[in-house]
């Protein structure tokens, strides 16, 4: 165990990491958000989804350090009397869940398709790449709008609300696969001509096994970088959709929903209802982006 840790510590990537203050800072922020996502109950002062615990009496309290604020509500309260800090912690959890799950879905669709297109070539390649071209003409927002419309009509309000998170994951995830497919296809076409692939074919390994066991590990690095950067994109996309009312409903708010709801009070003086969720979203996306950039540089030998 210690051996593994030592080896990890001495690896090139760990060395790069220690040398980059931006990466360290970003990782620290991300860790904090991860903790919020994993154990929100431990971090949030109030369980904001428990309707029996919120009181309209407490509505519109400013942050604790301002006049009229209450120490029980560090960042103040929203229009319903919910603790804003708790709402942000739970909201970040929803945002990260949607972001991570939709990226995973994109990877799961895009990587196998890219492998097949790159390795098999011919009509399979043509078919998958044309499908990718068609997919690119449907931006994620459009697909999300279509999904939302169909789901609302088919399920009705309350059922739709319960399924909002999986639906949003599906809408964002399904539009993101093209980048992965294209990246993996290119890398696979390069790897396909290598000797180790020819050797594996020579000893009679089946195509599927060659793709999975031999080629896949060698094309995963760019996927990792892409996934990290796309995580930030997916989180922003989720926030955008929620902001225009097509995403997560206010009963289980994500950061985007909190910003949408708070936006109503931007002109009326209760700035904290929109500003703090906005800052949280900014920090989260910035951290993911910085880490993604650093990872790309660290894994690219040409830059060193």
């Amino acid at each position, binding site marked *: 165990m210690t051996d593994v840790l030592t080896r990890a510590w001495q690896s090139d990537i760990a060395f790069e990491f220690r040398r980059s203050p931006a990466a360290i800072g970003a990782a620290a922020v991300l860790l904090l958000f991860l903790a919020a996502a994993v154990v929100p109950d431990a971090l949030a002062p109030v369980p904001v989804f428990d309707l029996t615990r919120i*009181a*309209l*009496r407490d*509505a519109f309290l400013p942050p604790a350090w301002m006049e009229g604020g209450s120490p029980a509500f560090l960042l103040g309260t929203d*229009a319903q009397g919910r603790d804003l800090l708790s709402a942000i912690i739970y909201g970040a959890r929803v945002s990260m869940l949607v972001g991570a799950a939709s990226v995973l879905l994109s990877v799961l669709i895009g990587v196998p398709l890219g492998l097949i297109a790159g390795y098999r070539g011919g009509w399979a390649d043509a078919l998958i790449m044309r499908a990718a071209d068609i997919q690119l003409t449907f931006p994620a927002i459009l697909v999300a709008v279509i999904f939302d419309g169909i789901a609302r009509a088919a399920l009705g309000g*309350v059922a739709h609300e319960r399924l909002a998170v999986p639906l949003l994951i599906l809408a964002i995830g399904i539009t993101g696969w093209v980048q992965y497919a294209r990246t993996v296809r290119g890398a696979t076409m390069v790897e396909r001509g290598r000797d180790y692939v020819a050797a594996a074919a020579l000893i009679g390994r089946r195509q599927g096994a060659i793709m999975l066991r031999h080629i896949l590990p060698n094309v995963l690095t760019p996927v990792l970088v892409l996934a990290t950067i796309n995580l930030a994109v997916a989180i922003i996309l989720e926030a955008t959709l929620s902001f225009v009312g097509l995403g997560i409903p206010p009963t289980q708010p994500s950061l985007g929903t909190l910003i949408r709801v708070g*936006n109503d009070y931007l*002109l*009326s003086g209760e700035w904290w209802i929109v500003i703090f969720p906005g800052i949280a979203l900014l920090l989260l996306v910035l951290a993911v982006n910085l880490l993604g950039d650093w990872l790309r540089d660290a894994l690219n030998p040409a830059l060193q």
Partner: protein
Amino acid sequence: MRGTGLTGARLGAALLAATITAGAAEAATLRVGVQADAGTMDPQAQNIQTTLTLHAMVFDALVTRDRQLKLAPGLATRWELVNPTTWRFHLRPGVRFHGGEAFGADDVKFSIERAKAASSQFQIFVAKIKEVVVVDDLTVDLVTDGPDPLVPDKLTYIFVMDRGWAEQHSVREPQNLRTRQETHTALNANGTGPFILRTREPDSRTVLERNGSYWTPIEGNVTRVEWRPIANDPTRISALLSRELDLVIDVPTQDVARLQRDQNLRVERADEFRTIFFGFDLKNEQLKYGQPGGGNPFRDRRVREAVSRAIDIASIQRATMRGLATPTGQLLAPGNVGYDPALDARLPYDQAAARRLLQEAGVPQGFAFTLDCPNDRYVNDEQVCQAVTAMLNQVGFNVSLNLMPRARYFPKLWERDTSMFMMGFNSPYFDGMYALETLHMTRADPEGIFNYSLYSNPEIDAMIRAARDETDLARRETLMKAAWKRVTEERIYIPLYHQVLVWAMRTNVVAPLRPDNWLEIRWVKVN
């Protein structure tokens, strides 16, 4: 009401002064910001205040109202009761529709009969009119089924269309919004009103231009109206602040304080004749959106009382409505005939009492159901419903909140497809009979046309009918008060508050506020 009278008088004086000094010749555009658009241009298809306000610019009714809200001649110059069941209306000669067609008795007969069609939402106003008799081209007799002293009041809501135009465009019947029908009238209008419809882009922009050959001098000086629905509150207010709009008639409560501080804007308020309340499914044995096998506990008066007692109205008034609401225990605002101050007190907010009532009603654990609410119809409807959802959960109910835009919400109510719902109601023609008849009577359209709870109590029906058919006005009011007392104590609905109406305008705009939230465009002046 008192506030409005004062405002009206002041505005009247200001207007008079302005007319003397400047005249009303110069062109002026009025850009009006509203939260949601009128759903159609068909004058008999949608009975919603916003829609009426826009339609009143294009159409005229036989009877209109003056600044003191008293009846005034419109397309009819005068009217009289020929016998107890016949009203005679003398029509204004020389009036022409925007398309050039002459206005006459035929058009009046056509429009009143059109309002009686199944797809009309104005049936209640003309229900007692049995027959429209054309005496000559400028005289019509309205024969009612029993005496109806309120015929002229009700006719203020019946806009007159040109019969020939309607037949030419096959819109003899009103557009049916329930079936999402599309007709020529959805986007086009041909009235006699002070303004002519020029451009109609639903949910985006409607442009109207002044009717140069209107049948009477127009007091105001507006020559062009731009009607701009902007759903998002901050966007609408920003548009006003950045001078993109001149007048906003749906001001979000949270922005009132800020707008009042702005030197370039004037904020006016009046007690609105609109009461916000909750209703329940009171008919079905099993709640459609409730616990399967849980029956319908709302049919028990004690459960409805528990709902009422669970609502912390003081916090809603203070935090959500920012003081722009008057809590109430009855469904009728002060200033209406039949209003009884004694019924205004709400049941006190008392969570323990609410839990006790649920226990007595045999549902000590509360029960699960869905609350349907609009999110773009009433002031802060979404926030109020969220707050009430939390409050009801605190006494044991398990409420799911179902929010939706008005375009989906009202068709759902029309189908009685709800277990608990929010509604706002104002009494047209300032008389409590309308609410009694449409909200409380057993449904037999037009009686009970807005009775979305499907409540039915023959005893209450009889009380309301007795008051309605009474011709002695003092006695009628006594009977109405008795009926109001009965329906209030029965807790058929749970009233929350009367809205306070707020308009914000640039300081150069003079727009008199009416407590029924009706923007009378003929009175608006832009300096």
